């Protein structure tokens, strides 16, 4: 529904007050983190976390340190952020594309097994990662991917990351497929029939009609999937063991020492690690929300 036209100004003010309060509520933990990230360790221990630092309690050092830990120089193709991107971008794009193609194959068909196949896809979204960790690592050991990649040093050094890409892609397929399928089911069927009458084949219909029309859904799927992959900790933890291949969440967690904690650096690093996803949400949050809403 739209406007409440007879909204009294008092109730309007109250409404905005509540909305702003909610916004503060959603932002407060972030603020606390940010304040911590610009404090010295001493200032942190001697002040309340959400209060801004004053005097010589202020420092940007944690950010330099965090950046050094999380990424280091951008020029050489290494560093945790780079590695995360190396994993997240292909995994996101791949699972998005594959999901879209699979969804197309599973839409508008009426054969007996379809419900079963779909159910597998749907249930696949609900797998707790814990349940598959042990078999998963065994699987990759058996595959021995590095043997196949030995000829390409660039990839051979990133075997763990490539395993991660494949794993995330596989685990992303169910959700992507279901998302796209539900989207495709909302398409005007006569449009697809028109294309068939116009002489387009099954494949051509995907290329020329379905794919171009999937843009809004791709926005949703890519944002969601990117966030998932980027924020994943568990798979990265067990699949990547080479320090040169560590991803952002691992690097972030690494800032927790065995006994010694540097909270300001951790927080700065947390922001550094969250930067891409935060950015994605700030920049594309509208598309995301509208993609969700546009479904109706």
């Amino acid at each position, binding site marked *: 529904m739209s406007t409440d036209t007879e909204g009294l100004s008092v109730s309007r003010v109250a409404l905005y007050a509540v909305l702003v309060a909610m916004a503060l509520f959603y932002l407060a933990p972030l603020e606390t983190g940010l304040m911590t990230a610009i404090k010295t360790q001493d200032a942190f221990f001697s002040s309340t976390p959400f209060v801004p630092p004053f005097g010589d309690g202020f420092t940007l050092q944690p950010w330099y340190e965090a950046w050094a830990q999380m990424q280091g120089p951008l020029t050489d193709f290494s560093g945790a952020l780079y590695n995360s991107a190396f994993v997240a971008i292909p995994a996101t794009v791949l699972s998005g594309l594959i999901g879209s193609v699979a969804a197309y194959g599973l839409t508008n068909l009426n054969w007996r097994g379809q419900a079963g196949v779909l159910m597998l896809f749907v249930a696949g979204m609900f797998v707790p990662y814990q349940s598959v960790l042990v078999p998963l690592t065994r699987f990759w050991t058996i595959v*021995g991917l590095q043997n196949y990649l030995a000829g390409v040093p660039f990839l051979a050094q990133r*075997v763990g990351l490539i395993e991660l890409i494949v794993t995330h892609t596989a685990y992303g397929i169910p959700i992507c497929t279901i998302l796209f399928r539900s989207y495709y089911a909302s398409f005007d069927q006569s449009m697809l029939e028109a294309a068939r009458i116009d002489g387009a084949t099954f494949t051509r219909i995907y290329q020329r009609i379905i794919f171009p029309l999937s843009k809004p859904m791709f926005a949703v799927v890519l944002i969601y999937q990117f966030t998932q992959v980027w924020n994943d900790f568990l798979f990265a933890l067990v699949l990547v063991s080479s*320090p040169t291949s560590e991803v952002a969440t691992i690097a972030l967690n690494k800032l927790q*020492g*065995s006994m010694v904690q540097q909270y300001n650096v951790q927080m700065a690093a947390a922001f550094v690690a969250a930067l891409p996803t935060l950015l994605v949400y700030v920049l594309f949050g509208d598309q995301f929300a509208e993609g969700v809403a546009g479904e109706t």
Partner: protein
Amino acid sequence: SSGGEQTETEGTTQAGGEGTSGESTETATEQSGGSGNALELVHWWTAGGEQDALNALLEGFKQEYPDVEVNNNPAPGGAGSALDTVVKNRVLNQNPPSTFQIWPGKALTQYVEGDVLNTLGDSVWSQEMRDAYRQGVQDLAQPSGNYVAVPLNIHRLNNLFYNTAVLEEAGVDPSSLSDPAAVTDALATISENTDAVPMAHQTQSPWSSVQLWETIFLGYNGVDAYNDAIVNGNISKHESAVKKSLRTLKDYHQHFNDDAGSISWDQANSKVVNGDAAFIHQGDWAAGQYKSASDFAYESDWNMVPFPGTSSMYSVVTDSFVFPKNNPSPDATRKFLSYCGTVDAQERFNPVKGSIPPRTDVPADQFGPFLSSQIEDFKNSESQPPTIAHGTAVTPDVHGNIDEAFAGFNEQWNVDSTTTALVNAFPSN
């Protein structure tokens, strides 16, 4: 700070053995055996001073063995849980790193039983080294009779740190406290006489309470009872002792800081630094924080007594390195382990880390007054009991159960049910 490590890995063409299956590694090892193989070192020393300590160690190692490349692979920390996950996975998949950090003692049992560790013969544990290590520590390195680990550092667990100003204000003399029960009274006195928190503590995760409890237990019952109850697992024979120490811990709890459940140990420790708290029981890594705090000097501002009742003991928390089978670089590993056992290595590493060397023959010059006094205590200690909280006294399985029991105790402070849980934590045999 990570730059240094990265240079070390530069030019490493082999990807750290990652994903390398056992067999192919074996052959690779044979072919390139001893000829400057890359040593993949997995550890959890990732933050601040810990990292510096490791770097100091690796520098020394490099000078000693310039032909060995070190592939430094710090695994994310949190007292090793995440590292556990990674290492266990890799060992299970017969793809271990060259060496990894682990608590010795019972923490190694599973590895030994699973036959995944190489025995360290004389080439590492030379007679010279055996002579330099104290028996308690040597025992930890050979959980089943054979040496499988090299302890690198020692932290003491049975410390009671305090803020001198606060204690003076409260009129409490820590050296006069004779047993854990006396501490309760002291805490009450502090509570009466000052605004400060009598004892800083954290209960967000269970390990601090575990280590406090085991120290209390030692304080009341001595090493033999402790060994019988915990190390040998005959805890059911010591139920009343267990209860008593739990009750004492519960008494202490009255005097903990209010936010104990929401902070980490170092946030608790900072209360001592700030003068907001009087005592804290912690391993001597806590002193690292005092050292880095400004205007907070040893003896004048803070000091330490062995936890009441345990002055003759040196509760050992130690990290060690092992020699996994299917090793991608046996020679390099052997070199590294040997080096860890040397005076040079321990002299480089420990002062920075804030721990003392396991070897008794390391010169104390580098160690500053506090650690020097710890070294002295270590040398004079009658026993070096292992610890539950830091894995050396019990198997991981039991350790997990005890953690669970104390996670419950931290919530309910129920002595009876926790006693039951502790008794049940050990396999009944």
